[in-house]
């Protein structure tokens, strides 16, 4: 009898360093499965950003570049312009993409750059210990909003996918979640679709993925799932926001 463990070939066998219950592990797996599904591992170049996933180059079994904070879409643009037949993606958190990297993501999207962006939104700066992020919710307690985020002091959270959907450049924009099995299956399909659009040269694709951060939310992994469901989904609705093939 031959037993073959089914681990995506686009992942290395290195164990993830992420916290127990962190969504990064699920999302890494979904991205790797999409690359395997499309059989593009050997011509993919990934761009890791700055955040908990800064070490993503240890986990994805592909060529990778590690970008400065916020700049991954620009780095991905440089790679794609030199290697237009390669599949290029960036993997970014909400601090990286929606704070310091706002200009880069807006302009890569506006240019319709034929790359795929995996945007992990856990409403805080995870790696540095749970500070407020542009996607933190009003009233959310973080290490820099110890009394809860106040709209008077720090304004309102940013809905990145909705914002980018006002641009003509993107081909596919969606928001998914990975907190429960049914949503993970939808997320897998959305990520697969985003890469398919790049392979078919349709243009810029981005999948925003609502994610848990149990450690910085100061919740158990199971409590974090409930917090995401009760607080993030009402504010960040799931769905496809732009699809050149027609939204589902």
């Amino acid at each position, binding site marked *: 009898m031959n037993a073959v463990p089914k681990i995506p070939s686009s992942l290395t066998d290195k164990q993830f360093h992420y916290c127990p219950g962190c969504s990064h592990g699920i999302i890494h797996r979904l991205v790797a499965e999409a690359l395997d599904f499309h059989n593009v591992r*050997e011509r993919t170049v990934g761009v890791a950003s700055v955040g908990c996933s800064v070490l993503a180059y240890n986990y994805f*079994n592909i*060529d990778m*570049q590690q970008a400065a904070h916020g700049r991954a879409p*620009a780095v991905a*643009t*440089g*790679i794609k*312009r030199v290697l237009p037949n390669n599949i290029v993606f960036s993997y970014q958190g909400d601090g990286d993409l929606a704070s310091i990297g706002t*200009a880069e993501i807006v302009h890569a999207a506006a240019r319709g750059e034929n790359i795929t962006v995996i945007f992990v939104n856990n409403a805080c700066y995870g790696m540095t210990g749970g500070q407020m992020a542009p996607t933190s919710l009003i009233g959310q307690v973080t290490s820099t909003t110890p009394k809860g985020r106040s709209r008077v002091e720090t304004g309102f959270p940013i809905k990145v996918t909705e914002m980018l959907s006002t641009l003509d450049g993107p081909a596919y924009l969606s928001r998914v979640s990975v907190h429960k099995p049914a949503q993970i299956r939808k997320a897998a399909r959305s990520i697969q679709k985003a890469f398919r659009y790049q392979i078919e040269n349709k243009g810029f694709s981005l999948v925003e993925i609502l994610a848990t951060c149990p450690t910085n939310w100061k919740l158990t992994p199971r409590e974090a799932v409930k917090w995401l469901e009760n607080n993030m989904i009402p504010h960040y609705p799931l769905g496809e926001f732009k699809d050149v093939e027609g939204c589902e």
Partner: protein
Amino acid sequence: MKKLLKGNVAIGEAAIAAGCRYFFGYPITPQTELSEHLATRLPEIGGVFLQAESEIAAINMVYGAAGAGGTVMTSSSSPGISLKSETISYIATAELPCVIVNIMRGGPGLGGIQPSQSDYFQATKGGGHGDYHLIVLAPSSVQEMYSLTTKAFQLAETYRNPVMIIGDGLLGQMMEPVEINDSFLTPSQMDKPWATTGCQNGQRRIINTLYLDPERLEEQNQKLQQKYSLIVSQEQMAESYLTTDAEYLLVAFGTTARIAKEAVEAARRKGIKAGLIRPITLWPFPVSHIAPFINKSRAVLTVEMNCGQMLEDVKLAVNGKTEVYFYGRSGGMVPSSKEILDKIIEMRDRSYECCS
């Protein structure tokens, strides 16, 4: 073949001749003509010109493109170079070849658009964080805007290091005849096994500058330092003008050197044995070119369009063996040869006073 070219355009043509096919830039005076020229030329030859959303985005596109094996350039002017500094540090650490052009303007701050040389410290002593060096080339004519650009691409590939070409608005705008040479090995033909082109045959390539383990980061620093030592020993360049019997040595680079030459000639006509060393590499600073003339010098005069930056490297090179004077203009003011001549005379008079 000779062509009459504007300085900024000469850089563009040289880059193309050297095999550059990717340019990422942003408009800023006084280098915008270079971007505009390449916006037309690169698509003509199947290259890529992209105006980025900022100087920061542009240098990060350079990082990605260079890491993917492209022969790539960006250009900007002083404040824009400040913006690029973080990623320049990354590029140096990741050992990616590329060329960065700084057509300097008056500073600090938003400053002015007139020529200056006040980014010497930024170019040679850092700008970005950490122990790294750019190779820095300082052209002094439109011919050198061309030939030093082709040299820059060769040096970048040879050493896997970013190279900066540092000019100013005068050089960028002036037109002079240029001998065109486009018959040398283009870097894009060279093999780059480290480039992230997709992991065929199992071997992954990773372009990274994160080293959380301090022992590993020290190793990387030592590796870079060894490279820099090699560059220091091999690549110093300077021009010597009337230095053989010079008693008063001028040191100046770029546009200022052209004016200083006139002052040297005027001084000679007055019987003052003046000479000029013109550093062409600002990093590595051409200490070996200056050293032979120090013992014979009564004094050294550094002339710059700043408040005294290369002055410090000159003093280090002179190492206390003779007096070092300084003359500078800043804010976009360009010294005249008469002002420099007056300073040479003053220097001569003071050196006789102290020795009599």
